[in-house]
């Protein structure tokens, strides 16, 4: 099994999912009741992967949620373009579809332009099976949304803001909600991909899964789309490390704070990691509150010891059992004491720096109020005052100082991280079937209050939306329009291989300026053959670059067969290999090994390049070997 690494500051919570690909069943710790063995629990929902052929030489890989005994539900699909052959070296993932995404209705769009309107919208617009469902992300055009963002920000600042407060407020409000919706879908999609067990559901390879996850998470950042494919592995590693770090830190921080305040902490396991934590109070303890004053640092809840509501509590409770030493045990028995436990709050543990309170069982509107306060303050400043960190230095200084001080003291200041945590919580509730149904229902009700986006759909309508969306996608991909679209994507991809970064940037700007009417696509009649070559070269060049960067002697660290095969591919297409620095890579291989077979392969490949391009790459070889002997 391979794990994937994700998210730090901007993405924090979603990354939690990242560390795990195995769907483990109901972990005992995920359900306090199951720990005690006193209550029956349902098995957790699982994912299976279904791969369907698509007209034009592609596959549709779909992650399907299945609850034992319940209906199956398509969740996420990704198109894998195989160019119609069985050679995996030229396969490429392209568009990603998240099926619970429903295009907002006209009313939702209208409400989203209203400043300070923080209510989730209705069921969304039903997809017409005849129309093309909208892709969440195109992996071959990851920088497209980033360019759009830049152009839109400039347009907003230079044009729309100039029309005065009403236009500025409405346009900014709409843009903000739209961006939030997109980010939420990205985080949720990443969460679903993370649930994949690559042993039981071999739909996507490790590399594909990693690429998909990294791209989904990077897409939530303004500049993430510009991160190159060669950096995805490093990015994902760093993000997963940050995520694992946050998870452990928050787990322990919350446990220690619970201990200091004489409360109880229980972790909740999701997809193999303790991603959430709950805080409890023992009802009998309310009779003898601790003598010291309650501190809500990191807990963000009101003093439970002087709360009359808890003494009259008739909400959800659990019974826990303790032995004589105070250690919790799974079941009742001799010398075992039973205690009624009242839940106080639930926290996201993968939020950076501090646990983020998601649910307050005594005051269900408290997390929503906090979020509304933060968001309305920001909206007031940006939409009405028209201040921006990039244009108003006083605001920049004040904002940075506030951000630093509040963050340093443990405040949840980063909006993207909060959003990520909310999305993960939603995904968790969607998937988890192991929790006591009463508790899950309480959590679902409270979770729905956290969504402030009028463009978002209600949870109850998501399942219906998902089925319709998936059906529409299948119908469309099977249609001539679908095949045409696939070829358009291929031509666009070929453009990216064959043009410089500057030219590509120009094409992007032209596309945005023409509101998408103009899109440059290479129109060679042999584009499929060309794409086949370019994909193979891109993959092998990336492999060689990655391998060479991490070693001084290939025979110690690398699989020489794989290296030779990569060199052979570069030599096989000598003219095209120049675009991928093929000769340079081969020279590096030659200088990093003593293996005669590999060196011979290098010489042959360089010879082929020399012959085809008229260069003298063989003569450029210098140095007898890696260590200079």
């Amino acid at each position, binding site marked *: 099994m391979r794990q994937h690494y994700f998210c730090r500051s901007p993405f924090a919570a979603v990354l939690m999912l990242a560390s795990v690909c195995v769907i483990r069943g109901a972990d005992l710790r995920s359900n306090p009741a199951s720990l005690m063995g006193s209550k029956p629990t349902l098995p957790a929902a699982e994912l299976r992967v279904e791969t369907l052929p698509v007209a034009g030489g592609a596959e549709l890989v779909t992650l399907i949620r299945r609850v034992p005994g319940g209906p199956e539900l398509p969740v996420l699909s990704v198109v894998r373009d195989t160019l119609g052959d069985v050679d995996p070296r030229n396969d490429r993932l392209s568009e990603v579809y998240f099926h619970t995404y429903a295009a907002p209705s006209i009313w939702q769009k209208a409400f989203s332009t209203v400043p300070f309107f923080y209510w989730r919208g209705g069921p969304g617009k039903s997809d017409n099976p005849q129309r093309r469902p909208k892709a969440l992300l195109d992996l071959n055009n990851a920088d497209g949304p980033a360019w759009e963002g830049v152009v839109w920000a400039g347009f907003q600042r230079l044009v729309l803001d100039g029309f005065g407060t009403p236009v500025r407020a409405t346009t900014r409000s709409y843009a903000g909600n739209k961006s939030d919706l997109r980010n939420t879908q990205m985080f949720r999609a990443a969460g679903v991909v993370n649930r994949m067990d690559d042993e039981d559901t071999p739909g996507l390879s490790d590399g594909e899964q990693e690429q998909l996850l990294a791209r989904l998470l990077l897409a939530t950042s303004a500049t993430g789309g510009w991160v190159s494919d060669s950096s995805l592995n490093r*990015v994902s590693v760093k993000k997963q490390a940050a995520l*694992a*770090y946050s*998870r*452990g830190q928050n787990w322990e921080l919350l*446990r220690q704070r619970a*201990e200091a305040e004489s409360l109880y902490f229980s972790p909740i396991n999701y997809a193999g990691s303790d991603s959430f934590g709950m805080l409890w109070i023992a009802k009998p303890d309310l009779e003898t509150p601790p003598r010291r004053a309650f501190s809500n640092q990191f807990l963000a809840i009101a003093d439970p010891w002087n709360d009359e509501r808890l003494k009259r509590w008739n909400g959800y409770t659990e019974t826990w059992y303790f032995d004589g030493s*105070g*250690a919790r045990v799974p079941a009742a028995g001799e010398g075992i004491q039973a205690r009624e436990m009242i839940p106080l709050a639930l926290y996201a543990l993968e939020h950076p720096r501090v646990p983020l309170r998601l649910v307050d069982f005594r005051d269900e509107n408290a997390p929503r109020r906090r979020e509304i306060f933060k968001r309305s303050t920001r909206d007031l400043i940006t939409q009405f005052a028209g201040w921006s960190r990039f244009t108003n230095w006083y605001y920049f200084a004040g904002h940075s100082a506030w951000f630093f001080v509040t963050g340093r*003291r443990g405040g949840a200041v980063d909006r993207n991280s909060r959003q990520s945590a909310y999305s993960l919580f939603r995904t968790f509730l969607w998937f988890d079937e192991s929790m006591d149904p009463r508790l899950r229902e309480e959590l679902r009700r409270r979770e729905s209050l956290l969504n402030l986006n009028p463009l978002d759909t209600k949870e109850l309508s998501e399942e219906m939306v998902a089925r319709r969306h998936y059906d529409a996608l299948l119908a469309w991909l099977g249609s001539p329009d679908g095949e045409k679209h696939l070829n358009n994507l291929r031509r666009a991809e070929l453009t990216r291989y064959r043009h410089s970064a500057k030219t590509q940037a120009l094409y992007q700007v032209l596309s945005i300026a023409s509101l998408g009417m103009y899109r440059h696509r290479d129109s060679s009649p042999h584009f499929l053959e060309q794409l086949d070559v370019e994909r193979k070269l891109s993959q092998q060049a990336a492999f060689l670059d990655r391998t060479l960067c991490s070693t001084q002697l290939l025979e110690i660290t690398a699989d020489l067969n794989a290296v030779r095969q990569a060199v052979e591919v570069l030599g096989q297409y000598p003219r095209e290999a120049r675009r991928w620095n093929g000769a340079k890579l081969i020279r590096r291989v030659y200088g990093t090994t003593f293996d005669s077979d590999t060196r011979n392969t290098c010489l042959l490949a360089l010879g082929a390049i020399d012959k085809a391009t008229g260069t003298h790459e063989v003569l450029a070889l210098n140095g007898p070997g890696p260590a200079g002997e």
Partner: protein
Amino acid sequence: MRRLLLFLLPGVLAWCAPVSFAAEPARRVVILKVDGLPQWSLDRAVAERDARTGKSSLPWIDYVFYQHGTRFSRFFVRGISLSTPSWSILDTGRHMMIRGNVEFDRYTLRPYDYLNFFPFYVGYARKQTVDMPSVEVIDDCGIPLLADHFPYAQRYQGMQLFQRGVSWTTLRRGVEHKIRSLTFGLVLEEVNTGFELGAAVTTQAERELIRELSDPDVRYLDYFTGEFDHVAHGTRERLAQRRSLEELDALVGRVWSAIRRSPFPDQTLLVMVSDHGMNTDEKLYSQGFNLVDVFTGPAGGGHHVVTNRYPLQNFKLKGLDPFVNTVFTASPAATYLRDQSKEYPTVTLDLDGNERAAVSLRNSDLNQLHLLLTGVKDRETGALLHSAMANAAMELIDRHRVEWQRKADELEQELVAVGHARQRLEDEIAALPRSWSKQQVENGEDKQERRKRVRLGEMDSNEKSYAAYLHTLRMLLALTPAQVTERAFHIPDVIAPRAMGDLNRPGQLQNYVVGWGERGPLLDANGDLDSSASFRRIDYLQLLDGLRVRNAPQPEAGNRPIDFVAVVIPPSALAWMPEGERPIDGAIWLAQGRGGALLLVRGDRLRYLPVANLRETSEGEVRFDPQPWRAGLPLEVFEDPSFHPLGAERERWLAGWHTEEEWLDASAEGRYPNAVPSLREQLLLTTPKALRDDAPNLAEEERLVRRFQMRTRRLVATDLLVFARSQWNFNVRNPNPGGNHGSLLRRSMHSVWMMSGGPAPQGMDVRTPYDSLRFAPTILHLSGQGDCQGEVLDALPVTELTHQGCGPARTGID
């Protein structure tokens, strides 16, 4: 093609057989110092195959050390598994002189903060320091570093805990290189994942190490990395830790390749060594237990506590202060010292390493005296009680008078001698040239001069601070009954602020005075103060043993955070024991409440004795009831299935006296390897050769200076050494859920020592257990500076790598 192969052949041979056993000493030594790298973790990673390549997941370490080098698969920490003490042994080959990452002087509360680089760098820039604090301490003890055995111009030292000097160019070039190497793509990547400026410096240090390898004059090079330790403290996740190991593996590859290109490819000894292991488990979080809360809380005595860092410093603005080394945490439950947290803290805590805590409590009798004098000063105290308190105070002073007087006299003599030595040093410095030639700078003579100035400042500061304590002690001794009765004294004049006083005896720790009793001071039938009923007392050994937590969500870790507590018992307290059983050098009580076990120390032999009902009599004798062997004793010597010998033989073996090596061999596969010798090393200070005041022909003044130096080392001793159970830790700075070290547990004690190249045999796995004291002698021996008599260092080189007559052969359990 044939010509090509012939051309390549020498290189291929050189690569494929990079290490050939050579009896010739190494011309050059390169040491990769890795903080907190556990042997078990490395073994596991090396054994795992990378599915993509079919090779080890750490291919370079596998190739260089496992296949073509020598490794010590049973290499253990000596002392506790903590960085500064452990590196002090590895870097010197001498017994431990530093026993924590921070130490507080009991008389002056001076913090020796060994881990904080920032003040060192700033001090160096201001020409106020030249060495890290740890190096200053061992210099004062006359102990050279391993690097010091090589001439100044022939060594290259990286940034580390035991660092001499600062290479500003490393910092500057590191940042410059980082900025220069930033491409648009890299900036984007870092914007989305966080900037890594810190790595710029370590990468630069590596580049410089590799550059220095091409200089044939450099004979000693080292490089320090704390990355794995840092990652493993933060996260238990295997992949994150694996990533760190992979980076280490790549470093080995780069250094090894550079050695192959260097002038002495076959005569360079490449060494990888770690100071300790790491108790990390991918299925469990390490849970913190807050001892600061215990000691500041009402049940713990309501102490004002001193630490070297702020609790939860990452969430405090003042936690950004990089110079902080003394933090006072006031107790809300304080009674007689309320609002005096900075003047009269009564507990110091060194929590670093985290699986152990060194606790110093102010001497219980000082507390009692403080209470009495405060009561006497209180004008609202009734006449009878006032008189009784005054009498009790004088009685307490009289009880200690002889001992305190002796200590005051000795300290005064020493301070006079130190003053004279300081004067001589001042004259010596005045005679030194004001400027240095390039040649002198290259030979490090300017650093020597600055070192002398630092030493001068140190002596001056010591004189003043100890003189202040001495003055208070003299004032206390001079206190007359009339002065006490008439309240003619100021408490700060007679009870030294910011001082812990002398170490508490075991009996004091069991009856520690923390304040007045519930009913306040009481008189007995004779009108005297009823000292047994008047004071609130705490048995700290019982208290610590009885601690439980309610939040222990991992059943495997249990809800008892404390394993056992180690307390030193002076030999005089056990003088009543029969001749054959009596320890000569003292004992260590491994306390579990009132029971546990005693480690008796007699010369080079140690014995483990289960005891119960340990108590101190009014005559100062420590008495106990010997107990039969049972499971559950500290160190689990009786039930540990991996402790040798096995079965019935074990009981007989345990009843005897054994050498340190025998204890090491017996416990090498056990749950607490090398624990018994380590406890001795940690708690019973060994006087270094350079500070022995019984050396022949020693001038009186020099003898006193040496005695003073040893006194300063003894004054940082602590009362309690508290060990955490596995998967518990005492860190309060910030959570350390990934893993911790500091204990005597196997995962923390099992460390790494591997060598390759030069005289190191290929493919050798030394199964004989060794501890870190053998490291430096072996490295010196292999580099041609052998010390087969143990005259210079405190141990001999390992037997397997020496030839003819370098100490007796070790017989391991294999």
